[in-house]
């Protein structure tokens, strides 16, 4: 009954200095299926994908494509063999046009020169093919991340149609865009493309996938039909014996969320930046968690960046502990006790070639200035304390941060700011693209920090999460804060959604 797998991997192994990322993993992918690769952060999902696409060379094991043993020496060979990938962070050239991005490296030619007209025409056909109505001659970065992602998929599918790997494709997409993506995925599946889908959204996995492979700590946990493994069983396979964290996940009881009184730590009054966010008001009191909800690109991040001095406001006033303040740089904000975890871990957060320890102490060291170094003993103490407290894996402070998985990188980022003992912690999508276990840990941490008196601004696309944590929720739409809703126990995701959709004021 079963036909031959289009891609088969046996006993694959990959080591990094200090980390065994993959340890004898087997994996099969059949044509015409959507297959989920599941596992916690650091389970080896990204590494496996990078081995399959030739970004990493495996240290052992075999790869067979349609029954033929192959050695994938690089991304180009992978592409030629029919394996295309769309990564978590879009890997295209943002300053080139959509059409150029789709055809880069394989431009249609005429008389040896690039045939621009043909390129535009074919690119337009391709994007129309997935119901995307955009101008293909506009630069890619003039579109939202979601559109960029879809362009990446268009490119990947057009390059080769045997195996398509989607690494967290939905983490930056809103609901409609996800639906659009799934439509495209189903269409491709029916055409016989094998799709490998990696996502932390369990519901999405169950909606779209036929089978799944579960990894844990770099080892194969098992291969299952989606219909035969329910979500609870899957989660327990993913986190293994450590079932303790599961309690907080399920509905659980929402924390008591009484509105705090007292003096605001930070007050924004008609704060604005042209082109980024319309004037908005916001008060944050110590011990309070304010959620920011809204679609991608609705101005959530832009609003937060003004509070950190990452961008300068050009209107309105900002008061910190009662005093009118102008934040000229992040340094100003940090000096006043504000910390900001950017949503772009790789580009705006971590310094990849530095170690975990160095990344953790960086903010504190910057605040102290270069003449007052933290002693190595102090650095080690901080690093070890937070590696333990946040369960950062691998637990080696000297591991290079770029070799860590996304969730562990996020934890390093959190640790960096927590050791500065901030009064206001701004978290921009702290749980995006990280697994369920780490997500619960981070949520719990945020709740505890607030209980101890820290003010938190929590930005997330996941409404459940925002509601679980926040005292109040600011709703943004089209770069405007349209409402601030008290999370009094009655507030439901549906109501927040309706507010986002209608843009109605309170």
């Amino acid at each position, binding site marked *: 009954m079963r036909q031959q797998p289009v891609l088969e991997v046996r006993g694959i192994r990959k080591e990094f200095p200090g980390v065994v990322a993959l340890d004898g993993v087997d994996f099969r992918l059949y044509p015409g299926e959507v297959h989920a690769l599941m596992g916690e952060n650091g389970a080896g999902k990204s590494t496996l994908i990078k081995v399959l696409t030739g970004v990493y060379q495996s*240290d*052992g094991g075999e790869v067979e494509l349609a029954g033929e043993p192959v050695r994938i020496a690089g991304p180009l060979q992978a592409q030629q063999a029919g394996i295309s990938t769309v990564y978590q962070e879009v890997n295209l050239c943002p300053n080139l046009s959509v059409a150029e991005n789709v055809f880069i490296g394989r431009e249609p030619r005429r008389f040896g020169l690039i045939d621009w007209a043909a390129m535009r025409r074919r690119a337009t056909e391709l994007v129309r093919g997935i119901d995307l109505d955009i101008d293909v001659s506009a630069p890619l970065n003039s579109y939202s991340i979601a559109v960029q992602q879809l362009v990446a998929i268009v490119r990947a599918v057009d390059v080769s149609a045997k195996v398509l790997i989607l690494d967290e494709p939905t983490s930056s997409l809103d609901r409609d865009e996800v639906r659009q993506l799934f439509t495209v995925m189903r269409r491709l599946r029916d055409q016989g493309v094998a799709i490998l889908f990696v996502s932390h959204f369990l519901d999405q996995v169950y909606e779209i996938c036929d089978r799944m492979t579960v990894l844990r700590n770099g080892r194969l946990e098992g291969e299952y039909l989606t219909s035969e493994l329910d979500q609870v069983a899957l989660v327990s396979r993913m986190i293994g014996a450590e079932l303790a964290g599961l309690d907080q996940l399920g509905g659980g009881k929402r924390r008591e969320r009484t509105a705090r009184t007292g003096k605001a730590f930070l007050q924004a009054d008609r704060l604005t930046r042209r082109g980024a966010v319309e004037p908005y008001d916001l008060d944050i009191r110590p011990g309070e968690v304010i959620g920011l909800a809204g679609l991608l690109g609705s101005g959530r991040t832009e609003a937060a960046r003004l509070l950190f001095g*990452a961008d300068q406001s050009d209107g309105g006033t900002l008061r910190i502990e009662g005093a009118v303040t102008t934040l000229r740089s992040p340094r100003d904000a940090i000096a006043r006790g504000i910390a900001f975890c950017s949503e772009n871990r790789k580009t705006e957060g971590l310094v990849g*070639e530095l170690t975990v320890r160095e990344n953790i102490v960086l*903010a504190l060291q910057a605040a102290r*200035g270069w003449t*007052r*170094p933290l002693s190595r003993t102090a650095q080690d103490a901080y690093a070890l304390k937070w590696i333990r407290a946040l369960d950062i894996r691998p637990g080696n402070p000297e591991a290079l941060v770029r070799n860590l998985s996304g969730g562990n990188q996020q934890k390093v980022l959190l640790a960096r700011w927590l050791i500065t003992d901030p009064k206001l912690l701004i978290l921009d999508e702290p749980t995006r693209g990280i697994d369920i276990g780490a997500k619960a840990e981070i949520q719990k941490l945020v709740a505890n920090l607030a209980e101890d008196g820290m003010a938190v601004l929590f930005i997330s696309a996941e409404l459940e999460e925002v509601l679980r944590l926040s005292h109040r929720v600011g709703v943004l739409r089209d770069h405007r804060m349209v409402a601030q809703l008290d999370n009094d126990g009655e507030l439901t995701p549906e109501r927040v959604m309706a507010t986002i959709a209608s843009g109605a004021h309170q």
Partner: protein
Amino acid sequence: MSTATTASTVKAVTRSRLFWPAAVLAVLLVANLAFTPDFFAVRLQGGHLYGSLIDILHFGAPLILVSLGMTLVIATGGIDLSVGSTVAISGALACLHISESTDPGSLATVLTAVGIALGTALVLGVVNGLLVARVGVQPIIATLILMVAGRGVAQLITDGQIITVTSDPYKMIGGGYWLTMPFAILLSALVVLATVLLTRSTALGLLLESVGGNPVASRLVGIRAMRLVALVYVFSALCAALAGLMVSSNVSAADGNNAGLWIELDAILAVVLGGTSLNGGRFSIGGTVLGALIIQTLSTTVYTIGIPPETTLVFKAFVVIAVCLIQSPAFRAKLAARAARTRRTTRPHPAAPTNREVGA
């Protein structure tokens, strides 16, 4: 068991960032032995040490200094092309002052000359630093300005002539001996040591690596990148000025045209050979010193084995390419893979268990 631990020690040593530069230097030195049997001989004569090794250190001292400054600049993701011109300007100013003074042999005159040279370099460094850090000019362009203009300035100072000076205290800097060693070696060793202390026992090194590794993240983490970046250009100019004093002192003359000519390229090469990436981030001062010594050894080798002068640059180029390739992990991996393939094809049993180191 013990072989396993030895193997892991060997692995740790070869993985060290300094292993390949050190290995290359060692090979170059040993290769010289074939042509010059007494290459490693160091003898004491009239209270001074002599020998090829001493010569390499002595003549390599200015390059070490320039490379040192270049290392920190490159760590921030920049580059400083103006160091050669700074070398020339510094030597020219110092020699001009000494030659015009009534008492060229006095220590006060020489100290003033050194002060003028370093002070001018400070200004030049500040200009570079402001152009790069404040105005935001790309480093290669910003420093290219001074690279071109500075050469002209040096010739203006010397009036197109070679200024010769007779001054014992000045001669000391680049040509003198102290405690049997050439003073230049001691001076450059001191600066290297001070730089290591400055970067590694303060947080300067970490912050520079952060700025070079990810400028955006560094800003968001509150590092005053602008200041740090400006600072490294000042440091680089000061190192170059010191090198300029050494060069002109050694020959007791200032040559605005040729002093420090192309030294910026040798310095960049030394930094790269030492394992610091041109993309910025992680830097290694030890590696840079080794890199500078590799280049100097190469120059010495060219003379001692009698390569015709018209082909020396070509010879140097080939060695440098080879060295760069050997040091590249990607190239070594490719080489190892090819070696493994040929071994597999020549062996009758491809699946011999010894060939499969990984698996279980």
